[in-house]
């Protein structure tokens, strides 16, 4: 691909975003509508709020709850996934429970977590962890079961210990599928972070945004939505970078086969 071609492709892909933002700026410039304030006033509010006066009080708590909940989900999901994947009896025994628990619309659990644990950090983290565990759990079970027979046999022939088999064979070969589950969970963790802050919280980006709407601080509400949008896109990019790094061996090996 020549440089000219590449510039043309980049140019084309930037048309729509640039046009939209310019349109938004121009059309809202002298807006008197209460619902759709001018883009410049939204950006001013964004600067005043999120750069950086409420970072410590709201952004950081949100991200900590999100991060801890997500880590909890990854840990629980992989742990029980390997367990259920290897011990079919256990999987069979808990199948109805797991299937039912993951069918509950996740946000419906928010009132329950508030009733049981209040509106602090702990219920939010546990709830994110619980809800986001299921995609990882199910994908880990599938991944651990889908290991090539040959690989298992080699591991047995070399008399790898159980521990070595789990960490050197089963988890690495299930990794692509585990990551697929982790990506779904990432989206869920983000949704749960926002909803838990909107329903029962005294801090967080979701809290500030919904509170701004309820108290009619419309530019602040827009600024909160923009921050949440940027954050969602950003977390996704970070995840893809991490995935590419961790699974680089996998991409290389499948690339060679193709």
């Amino acid at each position, binding site marked *: 691909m020549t440089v000219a071609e590449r510039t043309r492709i980049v140019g084309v*892909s930037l048309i729509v975003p640039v046009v939209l933002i310019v349109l938004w700026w121009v059309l809202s410039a002298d807006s008197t509508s209460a619902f759709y304030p001018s883009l410049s006033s939204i950006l001013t509010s964004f600067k005043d709020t999120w750069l950086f006066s409420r970072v410590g009080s709201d952004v950081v708590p949100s991200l900590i709850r999100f991060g801890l909940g997500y880590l909890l989900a990854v840990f629980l999901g992989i742990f029980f996934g390997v367990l259920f994947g290897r011990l079919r009896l256990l999987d069979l025994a808990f199948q109805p429970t797991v299937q039912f628990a993951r069918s509950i619309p996740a946000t419906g659990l928010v009132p329950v977590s508030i009733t049981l644990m209040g509106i602090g950090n702990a219920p939010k983290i546990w709830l994110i962890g619980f809800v986001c565990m299921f995609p990882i759990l199910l994908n880990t079970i599938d991944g651990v079961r889908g290991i090539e027979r040959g690989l298992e046999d080699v591991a047995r022939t070399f008399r790898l210990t159980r521990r070595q088999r789990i960490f050197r064979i089963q988890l690495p070969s299930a990794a692509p599928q585990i990551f697929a589950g982790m990506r779904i969970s990432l989206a869920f963790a983000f949704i749960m972070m926002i909803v838990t802050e909107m*329903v029962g919280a005294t801090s967080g980006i979701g809290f500030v945004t*919904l509170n701004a709407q309820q108290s009619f601080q419309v530019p602040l509400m827009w600024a909160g939505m923009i921050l949440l949008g940027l954050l969602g*896109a950003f977390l996704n990019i970070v995840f893809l970078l991490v995935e590419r790094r961790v699974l680089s061996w996998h991409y290389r090996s499948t690339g060679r086969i193709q």
Partner: protein
Amino acid sequence: MVGSPGVTVRADARTSAGTGSPSAAPSRGRRRLSPRLLIPLGTTIGLLGLWELFARTGVLPDEVPPFTDIVSWLVDQLGDPAFWTSVRQTVWQWFAGLVIGGVVGIVLGVTIGAVPFVQRLLNVPLEFLRPIPAIVYLPLLILVLGSRPQTAILLASLGAFWPLLFQSIYGVRAIDQQAIETGKVFGLSKRQRLWYIMLPSLLPYLATGVRIASSLALIVAVSIELVGGVPGLGADMAAASQNGLYDAMYGLLLVSGILGLLLNAVLERTEKRLLRWHVSHRVVNT
């Protein structure tokens, strides 16, 4: 991605080898059917029994009522029209959102998949907007539209839009060009090619998309009821928990879970019917 029928077959074979139980291999079939049913059933009943016991003896906090209390609350509700109204509202918001978001997603996705220029034009904004969950738009929609069913439908359709958009892009790209060329050679008309070649190739992708979209639409609908006070099961749940009606809170949660299972089962059945010719649903010869 569109289903992996091989996995279960292999897992079965390995269990009998792994546990080393001598009777496992030959006795598969009729005799294995009963433990397959009894073990999960027994465990579930056991868990519910433990819950009942712990709640009655006060091991669990007061906020957790015994399971039988929840069931009896639920049975009472079955005769209450208000309960059914809530169920109907949630299901309607789910359904309308799924249909609207799905149709828009499929039309846009097919266009993007078929026209490379449109794809280049929209790729960056779509990839940027995709990881932003529908719930982010909730404050704006409540502000502009208020806590009405239309708000929930709009938001649910946004949730359903993304999976179907991307599944239809992938599906169109996966259409075998040679099959289309072959169709042309055999003199199929444009409509026939669409109906007999492109659509069957697209359908499995759409089926997967519909399943993801359905669960997202339900989550979004319940969330907006919960947060925005749009009438439905979510709003009832919020009210129950605020008023300390714990039987009702858990009962409604139970209902929403059953609803999730039911909707999923309906979709899976429809998929199986529509796609019984497809590889992932054909019975593998063993």
